[in-house]
């Protein structure tokens, strides 16, 4: 048996945020990470992946420990969007840090569909400010009339639009579409000990640490002497006693097979949405027969994926994409609209970063001229349509009968897109047509309805609410019925909203950390 004051399962951005905040206050924290360590800053990964084109398998968890059964209409392998290592999915994220809009937290009130969050934007706003400071967010909301209200400016200046985006932006403005800069967790200038971005443009393996990765705060947490990080271990169960108090977790060393129990005063589950709901289900006992926090039958239900589709815009003149790694232009103009009761909001992202395959296919058999081979790339702008999705009875996570090497049932994900999703896609198509007409494309392509990715935006299944009858966690992410067990991450999301989830994840994590310190450890 080992012990700590607080035990955190998962070292992704949510778990690391809480570990860091607690350790800063001298609270003894033990973090369990299922995957391997992952160097920060990512200079080692830069040499491997960028200079030597080598995806080192040692940087992620063996697939046999992370199986998923999935069915429905998901057009990708969900597990391919998960990264089991120190820092989790935020070791690869795009670092776009957007606040939800006030209406996003009150969809039912405003549009008569979905559910309202049990917290308001005004309650969350101070935590958004703290999250932006924690992550070192660069941006300027002055050029974005659609931005939600804020009480503090962003801590760092913005990344400017690229030359091409300014040219396209002028054409779009003539057609009443506004492009603006994008708040993001990349350091525009020196911030704390993180150097300013130098536009290497390969942010997935940023050698400087300019693009935020949780390893930054995990190292700071460990340096306090109050945070212990243990890697390559799987937490298999949460042991809850008859009084509804979490007493310990069962830990398994992936390499040696050793198992032991770890006790703590408070436990935080932050292993990502899929594994959070899985662990709560696996930890069912005589008192919580259907899983922890599941007295209302909501555990695993109301899964949300952002449906993100790429598009290509081809122009007669070369547009020379790929000159900037940071995200530059977006349009939040269509995040909220008057028909949002019928179909969702859509965020438009213009992409400046490089394609992973280079400016031309190395198997160019038809061209005998490099300029010709690169023609497609040089004349094409990539963009993404980042669409809101609804959470229905046809989108859920449960347990499969298939078992992992430990004998534990693996997750089963079912997802079937809805009429809402189809109508939201039709909206994207109309927007895309407007973009084509406004900017004078010669050809274009929008990924079809059946093809989308969620860019690791796995949301819901342990939704937040005031009553255990219709939710899994309370507004502070405490699991209903178990006062010393909390979740952290996007599993508590009530609705998807159209915007990237990570800033909200961090804001909620900060709020949960405050609550733990004030209400559970005093």
């Amino acid at each position, binding site marked *: 048996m080992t012990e700590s004051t607080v035990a955190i399962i998962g070292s992704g951005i949510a778990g690391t945020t809480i570990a860091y905040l607690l350790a800063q206050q001298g609270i003894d924290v033990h973090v369990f990470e299922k995957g391997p360590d992952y160097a920060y800053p990512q200079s080692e990964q830069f040499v491997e992946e960028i200079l*030597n084109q080598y995806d080192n398998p040692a940087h992620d968890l063996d697939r046999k420990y992370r199986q998923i059964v999935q069915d429905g209409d998901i057009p990708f392998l969900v597990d391919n969007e998960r990264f089991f290592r120190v820092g989790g999915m935020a070791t690869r994220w795009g670092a776009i840090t957007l606040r939800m809009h006030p209406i996003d937290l009150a969809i039912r009130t405003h549009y008569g569909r979905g559910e309202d969050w049990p917290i308001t934007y005004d309650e969350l706003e101070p935590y958004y400010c703290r999250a932006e400071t924690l992550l070192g967010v660069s941006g300027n909301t002055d050029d974005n009339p659609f931005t939600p209200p804020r009480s503090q400016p962003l801590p760092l200046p913005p990344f400017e639009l690229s030359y091409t985006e300014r040219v396209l932006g002028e054409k779009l403005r003539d057609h009443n579409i506004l492009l603006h800069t994008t708040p993001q967790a990349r350091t525009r200038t020196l911030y704390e000990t993180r150097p300013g971005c130098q536009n290497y443009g390969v942010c997935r393996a940023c050698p400087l640490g300019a693009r935020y990765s949780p390893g930054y705060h995990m190292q700071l947490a460990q340096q306090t002497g109050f945070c212990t990080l243990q890697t390559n271990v799987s937490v298999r169960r949460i042991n809850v006693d008859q009084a509804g108090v979490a007493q310990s977790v069962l830990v398994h060393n992936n390499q040696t097979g050793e198992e032991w129990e770890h006790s703590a005063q408070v436990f935080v589950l932050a292993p990502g949405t899929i594994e959070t709901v899985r662990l709560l289900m696996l930890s069912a006992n005589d008192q919580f027969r259907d899983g922890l926090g599941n007295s209302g039958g909501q555990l695993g239900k109301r899964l949300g994926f952002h449906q993100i589709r790429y598009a290509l815009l081809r122009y007669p003149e070369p547009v020379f994409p790929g*000159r900037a790694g940071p995200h530059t232009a977006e349009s939040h103009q269509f995040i909220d609209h008057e028909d949002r009761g019928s179909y969702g909001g859509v965020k438009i992202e213009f992409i400046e970063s490089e394609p992973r395959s280079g*400016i031309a296919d*190395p198997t160019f058999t038809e061209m*005998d001229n490099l*300029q010709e081979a690169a023609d497609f790339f040089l004349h094409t702008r990539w963009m993404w349509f980042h669409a809101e999705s609804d959470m229905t009875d046809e989108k859920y996570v449960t347990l499969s009968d298939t078992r992992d090497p430990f004998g534990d049932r693996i997750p089963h994900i079912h997802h079937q897109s809805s009429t809402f999703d189809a109508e939201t896609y039709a909206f994207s198509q109309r927007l895309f047509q407007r973009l084509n007409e406004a900017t004078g494309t010669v050809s274009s392509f929008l990924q079809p309805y059946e093809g989308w990715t969620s860019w690791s935006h796995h949301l819901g299944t342990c939704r937040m609410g005031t009553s255990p009858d219709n939710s899994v966690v309370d507004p502070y992410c405490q699991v209903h019925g178990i006062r010393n067990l909390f979740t952290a991450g996007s599993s508590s999301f009530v609705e998807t909203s159209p915007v990237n989830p990570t800033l909200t994840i961090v804001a909620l994590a900060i709020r949960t950390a405050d609550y733990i310190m004030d209400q559970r450890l005093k």
Partner: protein
Amino acid sequence: MTITRRQFLLTFAGATAIAAGVGIPFVLNYVEQIRLLPLPDIPPGPMDDVVRETMRAVITTIFVNFPVDADRYEQYLVYHAEKINGYGKVYQDFVTELNRDSAYTYSKTFVDCNERERRFVLAPWLRMPITRDERLMDGFGHGIFSLQVSQHIFRELLTMFMNTDAWIAVGYEAWPGMPRGLDNYTQPLSSL
């Protein structure tokens, strides 16, 4: 800088056996088949000097008309030989076969060949037989190993080129992976 058709042909066409106007004629379906051919499960290790010198000569032959930093491509090969299972063996075997081909044609090693001779020796490796008849005409008889060379040497070197020096060749100031600063991208390309 625009690469002319002539420069490109000089780089890749070489021998008359190569169809005119063909660059690097990898055939995608063969490339896909290569995915089923794993690298040999042989531990990594230091690269032999002969292998290193010969692979350097291969690099300079492939990119003869492009302003590339050959050291970087050589370092790429050294990294793979020293860090990843199987690459060293593929490089070693390729060099052995290449030297056999050059000895057969020119009675000397690949390194000792001049630029034109090197292109002629290299050309059959760069052209994958497409039809059964063409495979039968593959006089050097590289067989299935040539597919492995295609995937793990040529395709990787060309991918690296497309990710780096090709950007400069078509007019960019720098390629992703270099510190490009936060001012240039807000202005028109200086080459325009």
